[in-house]
């Protein structure tokens, strides 16, 4: 529909992409710069680039500990998400009394932003003794309504005759789930894995509320705390930023297709 010449489009997109990339570049540059980073004027390319800020971050805070915490929480969240959402999604493909009510309940839960529930959620978590634990951090994220509907849609799309064929082939009912349903829902599973990973990896407010113990901090908490503790080492702070961003970005770039598919299907669901 556009009649713009190609170079105009390329120029426009080039400018926008540059604007989108500049912050990333600026941080990367700062994290590598050897000279005094408060020197004026700031240079556009890193001078005397070195990696020592990364080494500083690694040793000056328990980076590895934070990384492990983040990874543990993310693994709990991802596994729980896939299993629980698939189960709930499967249940919603069946007919039963109160199905409509359950769906309404799920949809209205989507209307309750997590931020709104944070105080009682904190009190509840305290009462069941999960403050300062990985499970406590992971639990609220363990099932997500959007992904339940992604699974439901995916299961609904499997032709009923395929299940019949499997029954004639002699597959026991419980194995139909693993032999037929799961392999055919791979994209829903991938979507769920990626969304759950990004959500839990980036989660900040909830851990901030329930984690007091230094040993239990996750990377975003560590990052935010690093900001306040270490005033004079900007280079290390930005090295920290890069170290935190890389895993998320790598996962995103690897699984871009499923990620975007998941977001749009989730978004289309409200």
């Amino acid at each position, binding site marked *: 529909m556009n009649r713009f010449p190609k170079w105009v489009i390329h120029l426009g997109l080039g400018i926008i992409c540059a604007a989108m990339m500049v912050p990333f570049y600026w941080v990367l540059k700062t994290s590598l710069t050897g000279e005094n980073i408060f020197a004026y004027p700031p240079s556009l390319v890193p001078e005397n680039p070195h990696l020592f800020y990364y080494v500083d971050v690694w040793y000056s805070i328990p980076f590895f500990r934070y990384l492990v915490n983040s990874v543990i929480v993310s693994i709990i969240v991802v596994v729980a998400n896939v299993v629980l959402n698939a189960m709930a999604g499967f249940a919603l493909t069946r007919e039963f009394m109160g199905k409509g009510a359950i769906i309404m309940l799920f949809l209205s839960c989507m209307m309750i932003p997590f931020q709104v529930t944070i105080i009682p959620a904190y009190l509840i978590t305290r009462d069941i003794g999960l403050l300062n634990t990985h499970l406590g951090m992971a639990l609220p994220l363990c099932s997500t309504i959007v992904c339940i509907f992604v699974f439901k849609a995916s299961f609904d799309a499997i*032709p009923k*005759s*395929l299940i*019949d*064929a*499997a*029954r*004639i*082939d*002699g*597959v026991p009912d419980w194995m139909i789930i693993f032999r*037929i349903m799961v*392999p*055919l829902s*791979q994209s829903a599973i991938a979507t769920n894995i990626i969304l759950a990973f990004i959500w839990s990896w980036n989660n900040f407010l909830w851990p901030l509320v329930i984690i007091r113990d230094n040993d239990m901090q996750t990377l975003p908490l560590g990052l935010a705390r690093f900001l306040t503790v270490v005033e004079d080492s900007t280079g290390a702070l930005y090295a920290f930023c890069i170290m935190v961003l890389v895993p998320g970005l790598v996962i995103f770039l690897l699984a871009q297709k499923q990620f975007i598919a998941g977001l749009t299907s989730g978004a289309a669901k409200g």
Partner: protein
Amino acid sequence: MAGVELRKVAKRFGDIEVVHGIDLVVRHNEFVVLVGPSGCGKSTVLRMIAGLEEITSGEIVIGDKVINELAPKDRDIAMVFQDYALYPHLTVFKNLSFGLEMQKIPAAEIRERVEAAANILNITDFLERKPRQLSGGQRQRVAMGRAIVRRPNVFLFDEPLSNLDAKLRTQMRTEIKKLHETVKTTVIYVTHDQVEAMTLAERIVVMRDGYVRQIGSPDEVYNRPNSIFVAGFIGAPTMNFIACRLTEGPQGLSLTLQDGSALPIPAELAERYGPQKNRDLVLGLRPEVFHQDEAPVVNGSRARIAPTIGVVEPLGSDTLFFFDLAGTEVVVRMPPLVGLRRGDTLPLTIDMGKMHLFDAATEQVL
């Protein structure tokens, strides 16, 4: 060695009974086609035989066992689905071997059986492909292959050709017939297409609204339909139905149409239809019992009419002419006639010996 027997088999979904106590005996190695309009319960019957639907009442016997409570896999059946139901995530080979693996059959034997089936169906070249890389006809073959490898006693086909285009459908029809001759087993085949039923079946079961309306060989069902429904359902173009009354005149019995014109009844049928005098009847005439005036009529007496042609549909080998006969639109099948068009007069002879006469109230044949 296994026939299938249905004894008073019924199915209800909640309060609605969709199959009403059907009795049917399918002999060993017989090819039986269940045919009927959609919603007549034919697929439900098939799925009950397969064990995919619970049987509400009655019994189904395969061989000499009542299999009501058996799981599908223990019934010694195989089924080909309308949409093929191939596992999209498995290769053709795996699709074929899946059921055998479930039965814990040794790998060597699985390979042998799959290759044998692939040979019969000419799909050896596609064994490593995924279903989505196949054409419709190839998928159809794989679906049949999956049934063949199981070496079942009974094959169940659920409208297997309805997703194919017309040409392929004809071709696959022939292949299914050949297959039945190669792999001798009992076959129960469901379709809504009467042509498929006529060409494939040794016996046809015509169903409607959850009841069996007629069971018989294709010849019987076509030439001796027991009701207006069966007569109208089998055969294309469909049989012409004309409301009439049986009256006795000076020349003997004749059928008086609504416009007062009369068609004579052949002498040899007079005795059979005699008792029906002065009742509302329906005359059934197949399109091919009309002949051009000069054409020889082999048996029975003739009736002559000379209608004005309405719509003309040339089919190549034949031409269909539509015209009005006593207020009813009638179609006749003729050899291609040159030069006749809308508005022309077409003098016809009706071979009244091949007529069907039905009771207008009960719609049963007389």
